[in-house]
């Protein structure tokens, strides 16, 4: 028995550790460091219909136990991802979750339809929560009706299960979660980044050229944990949790509040081996806690 195995719509995961979208490119770089087949799955960088050149630099700034980023969804565009990035990843035994972004419903639908047909894409992650682009992204993620409609439109064309990625920058996250569930989402991924700003100490202007950026890293973990805790009580679809995961203990925490798997973002920059290290540490964590298998941990906060 594989104690770390987790089954989710479209995803049979040998372990619940997934590099988060935007923090792992399309895998090539980390493949220099370790075998990507060790991973539960990979969430690839947001893909849009057209090539995007993203925001001006500086695009990142450090904050207390966290960082801000405003990459602006830079990516080589759907065609290139289909022709090069996804085929390159086929040599690894790892399911791909394709992060889909756009400006309006039509682009989302076009990307979703095409990318869901790639053989190694086992699920989509609908990015309705990117705080770093002027249109599209977060505006779908802060209004229940838009979120639900977009989910339904994408579901209608996708060949694989659709997970919707929620923004934490809302008054009532359960409302959005219920809306995307009603729209037909197969799962939820959460949280995307909190909107933040850091100033240059001398000039008093934002360090990030875009002004604001998305806050991630250990600093946001308490916010993510409470949101997953709340949403898992309000929906019946599975959750992939993220926000500040850096250790096996953090993974246990997300599963405890009801996530079925976790994504690791910022921590990859701090320790590029963090994903395989966590995977290796999990069985001992289970022993310490007295659980046979990881799925026994899921939702224990609620019991």
């Amino acid at each position, binding site marked *: 028995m594989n104690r770390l195995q987790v089954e989710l719509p479209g995803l049979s995961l040998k372990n619940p550790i997934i590099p988060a979208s*935007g*923090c*792992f*490119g399309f895998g*090539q*770089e*980390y493949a*220099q*460091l370790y075998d990507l087949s060790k991973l539960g799955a990979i969430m690839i*960088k947001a893909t849009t219909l057209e*090539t995007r*050149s*993203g925001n001006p*630099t*500086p*695009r*990142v*700034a*450090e*904050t*207390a*136990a*966290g*960082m801000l*980023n405003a*990459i602006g969804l*830079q990516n080589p565009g759907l065609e290139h991802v289909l022709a090069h990035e996804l085929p390159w990843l086929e040599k690894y035994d790892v399911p791909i979750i394709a992060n889909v972004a756009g400006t309006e419903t039509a682009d989302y639908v076009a990307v979703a339809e095409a990318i869901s047909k790639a053989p190694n894409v086992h699920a989509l992650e609908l990015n309705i929560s990117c705080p770093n682009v002027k249109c599209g992204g977060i505006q779908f993620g802060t209004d229940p009706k838009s979120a639900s409609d977009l989910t339904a439109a994408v579901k209608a064309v996708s060949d694989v299960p659709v997970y919707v990625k929620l923004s934490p920058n809302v008054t009532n996250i359960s409302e959005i979660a219920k809306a995307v569930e009603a729209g037909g989402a197969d799962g939820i991924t959460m949280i995307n980044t909190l909107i933040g700003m850091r100033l240059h100490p001398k000039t008093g202007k934002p*360090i990030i050229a875009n002004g604001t950026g998305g806050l991630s*890293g*250990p*600093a946001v973990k308490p916010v993510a944990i409470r949101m997953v805790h709340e949403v898992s009580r309000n929906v019946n679809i599975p959750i992939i949790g993220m926000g500040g995961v*850096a250790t096996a203990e953090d993974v246990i925490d997300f599963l405890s509040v009801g996530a079925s798997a976790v994504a690791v973002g*910022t921590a*990859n*920059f*701090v*320790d*590029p*081996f963090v994903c395989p290290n966590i995977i290796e540490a999990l069985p001992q964590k289970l022993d310490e806690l007295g659980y046979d298998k990881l799925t026994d941990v899921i939702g224990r906060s609620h019991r």
Partner: protein
Amino acid sequence: MIHQERMQVVRQQQIAEDIFELTLTGQLVLDMKQPGQFVHIRVTDTFEPLLRRPISIASINHELLQFTMIYRAEGRGMTILSAKRPGEEVDVLGPLGHGFPVEEIEPGQTALLVGGGIGVPPLYQLSKELHAKGVRTIHVLGFQSENNVFYEKEFSELDDTYIVTADGSQGTKGFVTDLLRDKAPEFDVFYSCGPTPMLGALEQTYPDKKGFLSFEERMGCGIGACYACVCNTTDATEKEYLKICSDGPVFPRGVVKL
């Protein structure tokens, strides 16, 4: 190969105002192949400060498995680094990026090395390798003020060295480009590292020379995965953008849009 290693502090000393020289030892040194590459350093095991810091490799000693960095301890991370004592460990990711191509110049030719502030360090290993190959070097090193000057002696021992300070307190007063216009040194290839305006001025001063420039940008991953450090390219360049961490930090002149 990129490695992550907890390397040991061999030596740490202050060599100018706010400027420290730190020598580390470990296996990772064996993979340092090119001057101008950098390492990505984690200065604490806690989560604050969180991110790694990119620092150039200033000199390499393969026999002793040692390398040296020179850095300014002004911000939070570098100040913490400057407190490390011999025997303590530092978490290093590296070697990273593409450095200065020594193969782009022939023995007997002359290289102009232009450094500004904390852009000076990687030029030292470069100069040593150029000399090992039989290349003459001219060093032009710019600093704010005499208190900030470092490695004058080390560079002088290798070849001709000119110091420029913004306030004129040591060497020539002004910018490195002022000195270059005055002295008009003869050379075949230039190599430079320093603030972006200095790199731009150099490209303009020598429109017809072969040259290589090392760039800086705020980084996340340091290995090409996060798209934090991209720079735009000129029309003459095929790719639309380049990543400073993995495609650079050194690029041939004319590639990066300045």
